[in-house]
């Protein structure tokens, strides 16, 4: 008997050994590399920086967290939160009909086309996509040219004159940041919703109709509750990815910073690792709160 066969036989007789062999590598990875770095980060956030020497003071303190509540820092956190929430809601609204079509109607070649269309943007570099959007949204960009050609540039000008949302051009406005976030994370919302919708048997929708529910009622009472775990899963992606990203707001948007940029600057140029770490903990806490609330509201009941 060959060695692989004997090995296979031995493992069949000792299923626990097989399980152990399968679990040890990922557990090592998760335990040491992943959680280890997370705890290192957490530990850093409980240190503080000496304002005069710029040296890190390795004593336990909550002072660094206190700094998060200074007006300028709180601004960064709230701004990031609002953008992340807006991106998540918009992504869910756009993703749902696409996912619904893919799950309920697309068959064969159309289904393949759907997956290709969703995944294709993920194949190219994220940086390239962001710069491409800069070309689209810039003052001399494609969108401006198109609107000028259509004699609709006054529309854009009117929009850009709006406070907060507008700016000199779309590429240096919050609207631009929002649009690019929305574009880049959309696949992460579509795919989980599609997976959730795919799991709803067609007879479930027929049953709702049979019992007198019109299209709107079927959506509200049957489809949405059953798709909710998928929507929540997608929103975890879009929300947390937006919370932590620092490249998109760096390239597209105003000079006001988001959390990711703050982390980047505090650990880099400012050399304030404890404050950077404290900032990095913020998205983790926010996601924790978000998931707890989602659970309380019964988002995972249909799982």
């Amino acid at each position, binding site marked *: 008997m060959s060695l692989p066969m004997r090995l296979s036989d031995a493992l069949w007789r000792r299923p626990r050994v097989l399980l152990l062999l399968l679990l040890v590598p990922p557990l090592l990875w998760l335990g040491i590399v992943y959680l280890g770095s997370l705890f290192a980060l957490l530990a850093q956030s409980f240190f503080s920086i000496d304002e005069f020497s710029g040296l890190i003071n390795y004593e336990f303190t909550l002072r660094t967290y206190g700094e998060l509540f200074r007006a300028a820092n709180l601004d960064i956190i709230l701004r990031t939160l609002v953008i992340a929430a807006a991106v998540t809601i918009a992504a869910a609204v756009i993703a749902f009909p696409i996912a619904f079509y893919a799950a309920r109607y697309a068959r064969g070649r159309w289904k393949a086309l759907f997956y290709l269309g969703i995944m294709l943007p993920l194949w190219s570099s994220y940086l390239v996509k962001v710069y491409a959007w800069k070309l689209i949204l810039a003052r001399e960009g494609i969108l401006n040219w198109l609107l000028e050609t259509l004699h609709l540039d006054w529309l854009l000008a009117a929009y850009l004159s709006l406070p907060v949302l507008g700016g000199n051009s779309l590429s240096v406005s919050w609207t631009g940041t929002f649009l690019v976030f929305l574009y880049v994370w959309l696949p992460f919302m579509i795919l989980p919703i599609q997976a959730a919708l795919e799991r709803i*048997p067609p*007879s*479930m929708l*027929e*049953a*709702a*109709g*049979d*019992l*007198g*529910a*019109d299209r709107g*009622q079927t959506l509200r*009472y*049957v489809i949405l*509750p*059953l798709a909710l775990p998928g929507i929540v899963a997608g929103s975890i992606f879009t929300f947390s990815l937006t919370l932590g990203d620092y490249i998109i707001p760096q390239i597209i948007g105003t000079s006001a910073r988001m959390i990711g940029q703050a982390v980047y600057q505090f650990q880099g140029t400012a050399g304030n690792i404890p404050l950077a770490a404290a900032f990095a903990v913020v998205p983790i806490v926010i996601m924790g709160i978000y998931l707890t609330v989602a659970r309380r509201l019964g988002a995972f*009941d*249909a799982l």
Partner: protein
Amino acid sequence: MASAISFEGVTRQFGTVRAVDSLDLEIAEGEFFALLGPSGSGKTTSLRLVAGFERPSAGRVRIFGQDAGATPPYRRPVNTVFQDYALFPHLNVRDNVAFGLRVAGKPRPERYRAAEAALEMVKLPGYADRKPSELSGGQRQRVALARALVNQPKVLLLDEPLGALDLKLREQMQEELKSLQRSLGITFVFVTHDQGEALSMADRVAVFNEGRIQQVGTPVEVYDSPATPFVADFVGSSNVLPSSIVARLTGHRHPASLRPERIRLAEAGLAATVTGASFLGAATRLFVEAEGARMSVLLPKGALVPDTGSEVRLDWDADALHVMTGAQDG
């Protein structure tokens, strides 16, 4: 009696396949009606045409005289018990049953009272707070039934309602469905591939094959006087004697149906060779071959079972042989 459902030349085509082929059928009000046939025979599509999940490619489906062609499922006075029950997994039993009343805008106390009453009716009180995943197959079946009946439909459609249940439970549910239909007095239309179920429950049966109706009649008519060889074979697996033998015995140039339980082993009669036997418990099924036609004979308990290969003579009462003059398609 007024007709509850009528099919008028209804065809439902999927691509090139005619799942239902120019169907004409009247189902009377208050009837317990069975659509019987093998899988792919068009019986389920016919039911779905009534529920409104499918629309006819040609012809008309009328529900209480009204053309239902433009009526969506949620406006039809019919409710369905689905084969897979299709209970909503995120709702407990009470909310599942009350779903129809909820979308109809009934206030909560009223719909919960009605749901409790419906659960009482299907003998499942006290389960209202459970989730469907916590119920057995038989209990889910009852919830599905309660969920349909709570809307007081004029016609209840049942798609293989007992298909997923084990034998004991199936027989019990057959009884209960029958008495439920009698006490409610509404029309039940149920789809089944199980001829025993159709014969024991239905007032009338339509036997389907390849999108067409082979025969409509009472269980006794369908069993004793099958119109076509298909019906004879499908309902109670009768022996279909080829027209050559029938012509010699009776003079008719048609195939005939001869039920296995009507045949006796005798001193004189049709000569046959025993090719095998299988023990069924209450009886023994003997396989024989006579003039090239394979037949089966049901021997009562205690009868002598001849050895395989031996010669026997088959006899039967004159009225047991039913000559079939119906169309021979299928």
